[in-house]
């Protein structure tokens, strides 16, 4: 029994301080992204989420230049960009995608410049990989309280606005008639998405960050028709992918090439995809009428 366990969990896993930090920060990021991602997917804001992730590269790479944690950079730029996108959205609803694309392009260009300086002027050679693809085992433990605070803020926003967000996702007119302040609700939801994106950017990298928002939510949508349970399943799916990913990455130090270790982000994103595919294969018609979306494992009609 013990030998089976050590084959799965390589010795030293639970005793390693970087693993503790990774489990903690990764876990918070996964749960927050799972919960917030549910609303991002339901509201059809995935494109906005991807744009925020791309723009967070600018802040992340900038923060290396001035020597602060990339989390501050990720969060600073993505929340600011969320505000700008909201302003643009009000004045020119039709031009929103276009304007988002332009802001995104400009942000990434600035990010490219910062990354160049990161790797040439300062000696942080790993900066590019850390910012774009994350490296959970190198997260500084001092950043944990900030991770927790951002996570609480994002989940707090979504939990407080649960019903208004749900109703305005169904129909913005119905929400207005019911007395929902649709504009404020939408803007706050975008801030929650920006915070979730920055947490995921810290753990699995800015480029991959939306994988933790989209994948688990899309998986959970297949499993249940109850809105509150979707958030729960989404959070659990993200958490399982992250923690299993950390375990596999730790184990991979003993895989070829010897003593190199595979990137955690690869495992997390691969597991998210596997979970999604498993949910797609969920047997149809297990409960209720087939094709009507009753209960669990409903088929897409």
């Amino acid at each position, binding site marked *: 029994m013990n030998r089976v366990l050590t084959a799965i969990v390589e010795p030293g896993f639970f005793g390693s301080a970087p693993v503790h930090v990774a489990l903690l920060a990764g876990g918070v990021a996964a749960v927050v992204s799972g919960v917030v991602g549910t609303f991002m997917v339901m509201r059809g804001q995935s494109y906005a989420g991807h744009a925020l992730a791309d723009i967070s590269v600018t802040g992340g790479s900038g923060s290396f230049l001035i020597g602060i944690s990339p989390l501050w950079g990720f969060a600073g730029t993505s929340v600011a960009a969320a505000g700008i996108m909201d302003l643009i959205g009000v004045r020119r609803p039709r031009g929103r995608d276009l304007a988002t694309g332009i802001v995104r392009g400009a942000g990434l260009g600035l990010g490219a410049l910062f990354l160049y300086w990161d790797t040439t002027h300062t000696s942080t050679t790993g900066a590019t990989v850390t910012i774009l693809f994350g490296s959970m085992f190198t997260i500084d433990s001092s950043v944990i309280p900030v991770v927790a605070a951002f996570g609480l803020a994002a989940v707090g926003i979504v939990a407080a606005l649960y019903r208004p967000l749900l109703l305005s996702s169904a129909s913005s007119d119905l929400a207005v008639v*019911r007395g929902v302040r649709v504009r404020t609700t939408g803007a706050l939801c975008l801030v929650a998405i920006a915070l979730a994106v920055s947490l995921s950017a810290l753990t699995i990298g800015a480029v991959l960050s939306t994988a933790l928002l989209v994948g688990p939510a899309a998986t959970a949508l297949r499993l249940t028709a*109850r809105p509150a349970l979707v958030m729960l399943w989404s959070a659990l799916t993200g958490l399982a992918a992250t923690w299993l990913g950390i375990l596999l990455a730790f184990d991979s130090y003993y895989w070829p090439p010897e003593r190199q270790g595979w990137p955690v982000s690869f495992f997390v994103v691969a597991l998210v995809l596997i979970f999604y595919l498993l949910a797609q294969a969920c047997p149809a018609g297990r409960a209720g009428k087939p094709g009507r979306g009753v209960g669990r494992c409903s088929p897409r009609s």
Partner: protein
Amino acid sequence: MMTEQRAAPGQGDPDSREDVLTVDGVTARLGGREVLHDVRFTIGPGEFVGLIGSNGAGKTTLMRVILGLLPPAAGQVRVSQGGIGYVPQKIQLDPDMPLRARDLVGLGLDGHRLGIPLPSRSRRKLVDEMLGAVDAGHIADVRVGHLSGGEQQRVLIAHALISRPGLLLLDEPLASLDIASEQEVVALLARIAREQRIAVLISAHEMNPLLPVMDRIVYLAAGRAASGPTDEVVRGEVLSELYGHHVDVIHVHGRVLVVAGRGDGLDIPIERAAPAAS
């Protein structure tokens, strides 16, 4: 602009009745174009009123003004007694959206409140009753995105009714329905208006399905309105005045046809020929 207090002869004693809705000289513009001109009518408690007009006559604009979604350029709208329940024509929902019929109905009760609702027996009972009242009890756990047009309509009616409004506003509820479900929905609405004393304002481009149940009519043409009992409004002189050219009203087997022209050209039933009418 505040003169016409007795302009609307509804049922009952005009002195004791407090209007559920007062539309008082409303003018509305969309992109600089005047879509509604000095529209005025009132609706009393429990009245079933049809808002009839061809496409482009301004029905949807008037609905949006009443709902407060569009501010009028002139005039005002007063709503009393518990506010408005609104039933949009159709909502576009992804089949994957995790929102069951019972969730949508529940959001009609407390969709504006903060926080995640805890499971509550009384809330569930209320939602079940409401779904039962619109004959939708059997689809309570089906995702809204999976419902047919008629089913979704009934769930949206339950969503609008659960907050006990004084007035139910329906935007072209018959437009996307086949004839059988059309009659079902009309009968259902008439029953609700009668049993729960809720006033109903229902927009439609065809008045015939509503004739048996309508107490009064608000007829819109080219942005102007005439209102009153159906047989007083749907007359050649009244509608000709409204349209600004000659119109005949023909009764055939209990149905009404509104026909433009004097028979010397191409006669077109106005209700079916939107662009020709405006």
